[in-house]
């Protein structure tokens, strides 16, 4: 095995070691901790880039590639494996870039608002890296729990009654979801006798007809656990308030958490119930499609009804979750490819929006909305925070022309969320709609079913609603106030927002490169045999049942 294969374990080991090491450093040495954390995140970006290159490595043929890494050097399916393919590499890259942005933003003041921010941050990255790489259902559960445990801590970061209340709901719901996860996993194990995803895909078509119902029940229960995390209607009511309560950098990194649910659903539905699954092919597809559409509709109304900007951002997370789920449910290669592009673009733009909100709130008159009221109340309650805010007055370089920069960024985010040209949101939606309306390629007209028209209409309408809601908020914030308060904004706070928006611009300019990549990833997902061979070896007999 060449040494590059060992890169597969870096996204898990590096954050684990860094996070544990950071525990040993005194809590008062914020800068040192932040710099170590940043170094680790940057290394993760480099690793993710290398992994993306590796996953995309097969020259010619455009063929799929999946690399597996036996963690304890026992052969699959008997031991734990990590599996890398284009999709997981893409998700890793997305997460690490987002982590850098959120971390830089937090260095202005948030990382000092409570203990162990950096450790929790690294553990969150470890859980995410593991969840994207694992090839085993139970390990997926373990990494999910690592991610969630860290996210509980991060959601409560900064404390305050509002956050604790939202955190309590968030923890209770996720604990219940984890229990469903366990029930689903054990049901599937009880029938199929394996937890390895590739092995499971091989064995499923051979399951006796009498037992198939139990496997379906297990898969459905498992699916509900993921749908709670992905935020499908009607399992999503916890999401907007939890995300609104989280500190801005935390909310920014949380944007990727809902995408983990969508990632797992994409992987498992196409692997286990894809074209090779025989009688089980397409199981769960309609639920995802209609559920996704219901989510888009719900979030569209939610967006139009939100007064607070945090809620607006929370609902835009839901819109992107619904769009992704519906695209997964449709299961068409071109649509999935567009959806992956949309995933990248919407994650960056929503994360930028969450960070932007915090800065824009400073420009609003106190008590302008509910969130501001709560923030004020929270600020008055804790004395330490006041002290810290005074500290801020002296340190850091203030940004000149703050209001102009915030306004332009806000406009960019609005364009991205609405999916208007010239930014990448447009390309993402365009790619998805093209896939939907031309299933057999351009120039060869095909019969479009009604549900696809409905989904296309919903995607466009949700963009319109996003535009209306963003314009209304933008006018209230930047144009309507009689006396403008120029917020004091630091360079480190604006830099990550501009960075993420610049990435979205780059995605628009260089959209072809990423679309080629996502198309290859989508093709590989629709041909699970490559994944299975990558894990179990080429000589594995297909269709073996217990």
């Amino acid at each position, binding site marked *: 095995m060449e040494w590059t294969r060992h890169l597969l374990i870096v996204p898990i080991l590096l954050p684990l070691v860094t996070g544990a090491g950071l525990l040993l450093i005194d809590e008062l040495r914020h800068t040192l901790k932040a710099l170590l954390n940043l170094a680790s995140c940057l290394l993760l970006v480099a690793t993710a880039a290398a992994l993306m290159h590796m996953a995309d490595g097969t020259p010619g043929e455009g063929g799929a590639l999946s690399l597996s890494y036996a963690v304890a050097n026992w052969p699959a399916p008997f031991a734990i494996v990590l599996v890398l393919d284009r999709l997981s590499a893409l998700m890793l890259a997305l997460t690490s870039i987002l982590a850098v942005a959120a971390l830089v933003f937090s260095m202005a003041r948030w990382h000092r608002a409570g203990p162990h921010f950096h450790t929790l941050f690294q553990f969150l990255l470890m859980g995410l890296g593991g969840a994207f790489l694992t090839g085993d259902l*139970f390990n997926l559960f*373990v990494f999910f*729990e690592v991610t*969630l*445990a860290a996210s*509980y*801590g991060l959601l*409560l970061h900064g*404390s*305050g*009654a509002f956050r*604790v*209340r939202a*955190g*309590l*709901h968030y*923890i*209770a719901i996720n*604990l*219940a979801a*984890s*229990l469903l996860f*366990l*029930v689903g*996993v*054990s*049901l599937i*194990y*009880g029938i199929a006798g394996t*937890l390895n995803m590739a092995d499971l895909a091989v064995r499923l078509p051979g399951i006796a007809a009498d037992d198939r119902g139990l496997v379906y029940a297990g898969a459905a229960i498992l699916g509900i656990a993921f749908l709670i995390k992905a935020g499908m209607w009607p399992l999503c009511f916890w999401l907007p308030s939890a995300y609104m309560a989280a500190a801005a950098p935390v909310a920014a990194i949380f944007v990727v958490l809902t995408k983990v649910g969508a990632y797992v659903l994409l992987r498992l539905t196409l692997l286990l119930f894809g074209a090779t699954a025989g009688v089980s092919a397409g199981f769960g597809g309609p639920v995802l499609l209609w559920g996704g559409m219901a989510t888009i509709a719900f979030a569209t109304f939610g967006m139009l009804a939100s007064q607070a900007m945090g809620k607006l951002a929370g609902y835009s997370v839901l819109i992107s979750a619904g769009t992704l789920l519906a695209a997964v449910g449709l299961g068409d290669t071109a649509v999935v490819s567009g959806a992956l592009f949309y995933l990248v673009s919407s994650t960056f733009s929503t994360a930028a929006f969450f960070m932007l909100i915090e800065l824009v709130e400073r420009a609003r008159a106190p008590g302008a909305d509910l969130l501001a009221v709560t923030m004020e109340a929270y600020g008055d309650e804790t004395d330490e925070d006041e002290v810290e805010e005074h500290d801020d007055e002296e340190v850091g370089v203030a940004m000149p022309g703050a209001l102009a920069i915030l306004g332009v960024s806000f406009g960019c985010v609005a364009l991205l969320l609405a999916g208007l040209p010239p930014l990448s949101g447009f390309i993402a939606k365009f790619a998805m709609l093209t896939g939907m309306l031309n299933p057999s390629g351009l120039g060869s007209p095909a019969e479009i079913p009604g549900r696809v028209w409905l989904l296309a209409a919903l995607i466009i309408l949700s963009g319109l609603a996003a535009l209306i809601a963003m314009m209304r908020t933008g006018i209230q914030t930047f144009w309507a106030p009689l006396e403008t308060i120029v917020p004091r904004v630091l360079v480190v706070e604006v830099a990550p927002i501009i960075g993420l928006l610049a990435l979205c611009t780059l995605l628009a300019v260089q959209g072809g490169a990423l679309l080629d990549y996502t198309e290859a990833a989508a093709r590989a997902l629709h041909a699970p045999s490559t994944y299975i061979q990558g894990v179990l070896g080429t000589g594995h007999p297909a269709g073996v049942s217990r």
Partner: protein
Amino acid sequence: MELTLAIAIGALTGSGVWLVLRPRTYQLVIGLSLLSYAVNLFIFSMGRLTVGAPPVLGPGGAGNPADYADPIPQALVLTAIVIGFATTALLLVVLLVARGLTGNDHVDGREQR
């Protein structure tokens, strides 16, 4: 044995679900604990119920696999118990903080009027 176990899991799940839907934070914690016991028993039963069968191979070699219990569900239960412990402890801390900050033990932080 199957019937006893099934009734036990059902009773634990039923009480757990009812408690989770109650408005007090303490009921929530107990409900989630009961649910996790039920789930642990359920995972265990997925390895099929056997009496007096060891999950680890003896020194004399493999022998007949039917003489052994499935070790994987037992390992899974162990992991699930540990994770359940940790998250319940965390939930307890949050519960106490919520009690301190809001002054009551309602899950929404205020009494319903």
